[in-house]
């Protein structure tokens, strides 16, 4: 089992001036609302623990007010944790003194913001070089590096322009370049593509996935858009009212949603393409119904399974990686499953 890159344990964020009081009440098992009623303190993040593996894109999902933006800011301490630990490469970031924190931020972690947060008085090149400049990198070296990352995001010809002269999508490319320029191990992205129009958003997601294929950074990505989460997330964590309610791969979240809150995210989203043959088994058929017809590996996607199953009048067998028969799919079970999924849409 490889060691996680980021390991968060029992992290709390409480807004107010008597944090220990609120922590004590939470420890006694009171809910967030009860604590608010008693002390007037808002619990932003409530005892959250999770691990992120190196090279993973870990998506934090939730509605507004669920604490996801607070949680991502706790990781680089733009928001100070009230309690708990944030272990990154064996170092507890939550306990880092201010001067070490500044050094750590300059070298290891970078952030991309929803509103881009570019510096209007700096041109694109100087914006991309911002982090390096703060760290004291000499002009020539930082400009070369900034040019290199601008090339990666396709903006090399815009280096001398100012942010106000660029479209939203281009501005966020600059935001991404600024983050990549410091060559961070960890990339924090707070609703990074939410302010863009749908076409630009998909374009940026693809750029992100392309870059990730080349460079394998550990990415923490906040989003409220399930399709985005499903598309780019290695794993997805769902937050509700400061709590982390479910964590898993896209497939796990879709096939075993923890509660109605999680299920609500599926509304209007076509989740059927994340189903595999293993999810489509006909409950009315068992192993004995399989009479040597076509075989499907269990990870076959729904569209592929459809092509084969609908052409057959006999049940199709589904086999796992060890060639064990899991069950059968019939045209009937396919239709039932699809009509269930269609209800979300």
């Amino acid at each position, binding site marked *: 089992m490889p060691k996680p890159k980021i390991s968060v344990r029992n992290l709390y964020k409480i807004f107010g001036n008597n944090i220990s009081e609120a922590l004590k009440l939470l420890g006694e098992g009171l809910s967030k609302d009860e604590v608010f009623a008693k002390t007037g303190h808002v619990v932003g993040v409530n005892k959250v623990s999770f691990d992120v593996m190196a090279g993973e894109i870990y998506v934090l999902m939730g509605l507004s007010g669920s604490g996801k933006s607070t949680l991502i*800011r706790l990781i*680089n301490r*733009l928001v100070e944790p009230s309690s708990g630990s944030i272990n990154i490469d064996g170092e507890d970031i939550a306990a880092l003194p201010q001067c070490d924190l*500044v*050094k750590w*931020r*300059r*070298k290891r*972690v*970078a*952030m991309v*913001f*929803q*509103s881009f*947060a*570019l*510096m*209007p*008085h*700096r041109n694109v090149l100087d914006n991309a070089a*911002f*982090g390096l*400049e*703060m*760290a004291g990198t000499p002009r020539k070296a930082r400009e070369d590096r900034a040019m290199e990352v601008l090339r990666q995001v396709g903006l090399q010809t815009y280096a001398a322009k*100012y*942010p*106000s002269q660029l479209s939203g999508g281009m501005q966020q490319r600059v935001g991404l370049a*600024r983050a990549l320029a*410091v060559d961070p191990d960890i990339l*924090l992205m707070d609703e990074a593509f939410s302010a863009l129009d749908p076409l630009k958003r998909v374009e940026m997601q693809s750029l992100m996935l392309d870059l990730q294929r080349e460079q394998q950074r550990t990415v923490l990505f906040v989003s409220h858009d399930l399709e985005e989460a499903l598309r780019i997330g290695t794993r997805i964590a769902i937050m509700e009212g400061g709590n982390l309610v479910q964590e898993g791969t896209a497939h796990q979240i879709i096939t075993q949603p923890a509660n109605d809150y999680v299920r609500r995210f599926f509304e209007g989203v076509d989740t059927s393409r994340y189903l595999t043959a293993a999810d489509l088994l006909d409950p009315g058929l068992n192993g004995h119904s399989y009479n040597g017809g076509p075989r499907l590996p269990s990870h076959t996607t729904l569209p592929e399974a459809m092509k084969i199953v609908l052409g057959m009048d006999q049940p199709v067998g589904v086999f796992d990686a060890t060639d064990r028969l899991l069950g059968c799919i019939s045209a009937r079970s396919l239709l039932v499953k699809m009509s269930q999924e269609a209800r979300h849409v």
Partner: protein
Amino acid sequence: MSDLLSQVTEASHDVLPLGRWVNAGVKHLLDNGATVFDSIGVVVEKFAQWVEMGMLALPFWLVILVAAAVGVRRLGWKFGVFVALALTLIVVTGFWLQTMVTLALTLSATLISLFFGIPLGIWCARNNRVNAAIRPMLDFMQTMPAFVYLIPAAMLFGLGRVPGIIATVIFAMPPVVRLTSLGIRQVSSEQVEAGNAFGCTATQLLFKVQLPIAMPTIMAGVNQTIMMALSMVIIASMVGAGGLGNDVLASIQRLDIGLGFESGLAVVLLAIILDRLTESFGAARKSSES
């Protein structure tokens, strides 16, 4: 009835003798703080002298040439022509020297105002308590009739340039304090977070993020401070600050409407040139950002 009224007004004059307290306060300062005020006076006098000597050392044609060139560059050839014509008009009406003295006074007062006003504005932006304490003081400084400052200023610093400049600084400083504070507060929270996220120290955050982003607003404050300083240094002629104000004052005393018009016109032309030029430094930045 009218007897009663006069009794009340007379009485109310005595109920709260605010004016007498202020007199006593200023007298106390005079008696006990003479060394402090004398040394402030020496510093201000030296500085103002230095600025004025610099202005007067420049030949008039060079000033006109440079001002017109800056005008063309910042606002186009039309404004450049206007600057050249306006300044030439001041020369041919014989008010050049006084205009330069007034400009030097304005510049001295403005520089002192910025020297104290910008740090004060930064402090206000960072500390809500300081802000709450300073705001009413700024309101007071700005709305108190300008003449009133001249009395204590003259008492504490004698007659001449120094009380004029001190009174001008008090009157002209509020806008730059206010707008520096406003500009910094208007920097979006995500921009501040971006600065922190990329490893800014507190000093870097101020000089690389907050002040540059606030600069158009701060420049609007500088513009207002310059305009208020110009209007005040004219009034300051009443305590012998010199410059165009002297001519304006003389024209009132002698009821010389011609002199009043000429010197007044010089003030107006100087004001327009200063206003447009300093405004262009703030506005040019804004337009490249929006």
